[in-house]
């Protein structure tokens, strides 16, 4: 139980920070946040706490809950960026007008294999996407609403990325 469970026990901010320090370290280690990326996450949360201290009843629980959420958002954002990179790379690969080199051919084959292993709806969606259809057109063709197409696309990209990362794609040709 936190020392600040009872709002009547009004300890100073310095003392509160001293008390929570070990838990903060444990949390960042547990979520695997690189130390250099910790600063923004922690600073945002602590500033929010200082601003909202009069509403927050159990600051320690609030801080830990908020930080856990921020850590999850951190990794979600990283995953999103990874999907975007994969998506952009695949789009570029498909749009390349130059006759494919051997490496590109391999990549196309890897991609085709990865797509084959995806659920039917993702296969259809990504095939259309990589044939050059706009998201609105993909939505219309597959019967998704305009509001949900980006969410579904993201899920399919996540599945594709996972597939590519766990299949043959990471191989490197020996130099």
């Amino acid at each position, binding site marked *: 139980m936190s020392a600040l469970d009872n709002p009547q026990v009004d300890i100073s901010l310095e003392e509160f920070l001293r008390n929570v320090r070990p838990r903060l370290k*444990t949390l960042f280690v547990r979520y695997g946040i690189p130390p250099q990326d910790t600063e923004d996450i922690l600073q945002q949360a602590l500033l929010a706490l200082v*601003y909202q201290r009069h509403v927050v009843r159990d600051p320690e629980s*609030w801080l830990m809950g908020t930080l856990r959420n921020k850590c999850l958002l951190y990794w979600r954002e990283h995953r999103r960026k990874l999907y975007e990179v994969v998506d952009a790379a695949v789009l570029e690969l498909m749009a390349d007008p130059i006759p494919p080199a051997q490496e590109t051919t391999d990549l196309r084959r890897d991609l085709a294999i990865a797509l084959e292993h995806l659920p039917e709806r993702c296969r259809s969606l990504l095939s259309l996407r990589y044939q050059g259809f706009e998201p609105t057109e993909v939505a219309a063709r597959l019967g998704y609403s305009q509001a949900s197409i980006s969410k579904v696309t993201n899920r399919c990209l996540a599945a594709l990325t996972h597939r590519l990362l766990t299949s043959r794609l990471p191989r490197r040709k020996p130099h």
Partner: protein
Amino acid sequence: MKPRDPSDENASGDAYDEVIDRVFAVTVAVEPEVERGRAHAHALYQELLLHPAARQNLLVSNSARFRSRMLCELLIQGSHEAGFNDPAQAAGLARLAITMAESLTAESCGGREALNGLRAKAWAQLGNAHHPAADRAFAETKERCEQGEIGLLDLARVLDLEASLRRDQRRFGEASLLLDQVIRIYQRLGQWHLLGRAFKQKSMACGEAGDVEGEMALLRRALDLLDPNEEPRTFLAARHNLITALHQSGRPREAFSLLFHTRPLYLKMGDRMSLLRMRWLEGLVAQGLGRVEQALTAYREVRKAFIELGLDYDAALASLDLAGLLVEQARTADVRRLAEEMLIVFSSRDIHREAMAALHFFCHAAQVEKVETALVQNVSDFLKRVRTNPALRFAASV
């Protein structure tokens, strides 16, 4: 990515020390500044309230002095508090909060997340304070939430306000789903008192939807979590609702027992409204226990007091409780006499047109001696609903 196994934490935890030291130093330096800003915002808020509405708008739109996160928070809070007594002022303050929130920047607010939260709360407050603007306001709120990150506490507040509106609109399913999200957030943040409040909110949605068992279960959970020292009125309201629900579900002995244990809280509160509500509840419980004369006395006392205080809706509802009991006792002449008195009292008051139509309907039925318990109950239910939703129309078929 899944959280790591904590077993390796000691190995790499020291790498965070430098960062934590830096952040702690900034936080400690910022705290007095924030406190000064809070005190200044209180003074500005009082100053702003002294001006007429048009001037308030002008100041908030054009004067940099009246532009701060703290002041905006106070406007939102002021709007919420005004909502209980003065809906027009509540809407006015919410609009000021929106104007201010839209003119603030992420830098002046302490980050994008704080700004998003402030804007979402201001729009949500308008939606709650001014029902005709609600749909637009909550669409804006949703957009603000989707635009970027928003703090969990702010998000819970926004969802809570929307749930409250949906409850008023009798869209109980939506209200419950929204409150489930609120509950999950408070659980995640370990805010047990707020969690208790959310359970109480959800219990009201359940009760109004007709699920009295669900209402009681949620109220019991709320009472376990609510801190009577922090918000004695909220705690008392939850007890009050539980006693009413026990009465409604045909458990008068349990209701009586809980009322006995709650009486000191009403007395401690001491204000006239709390004491009247206790007396009203005593009437209900006495009715449940078959103590007719005790119940009639309590209802009459409460009705008389509400009329004197000019609390027309409460007076009408207490009158209907009295009428219901008289109908049960087949005292049709007393019902007719009561209806005549009600017509005289309420016709001279500025009562909402549809509420008056419902009362007329009851009084007419009493005059022709066609009142049944179900009719009294339906008129009473309508009055409770129209009080929070003036757009409702009374259908004589109730």
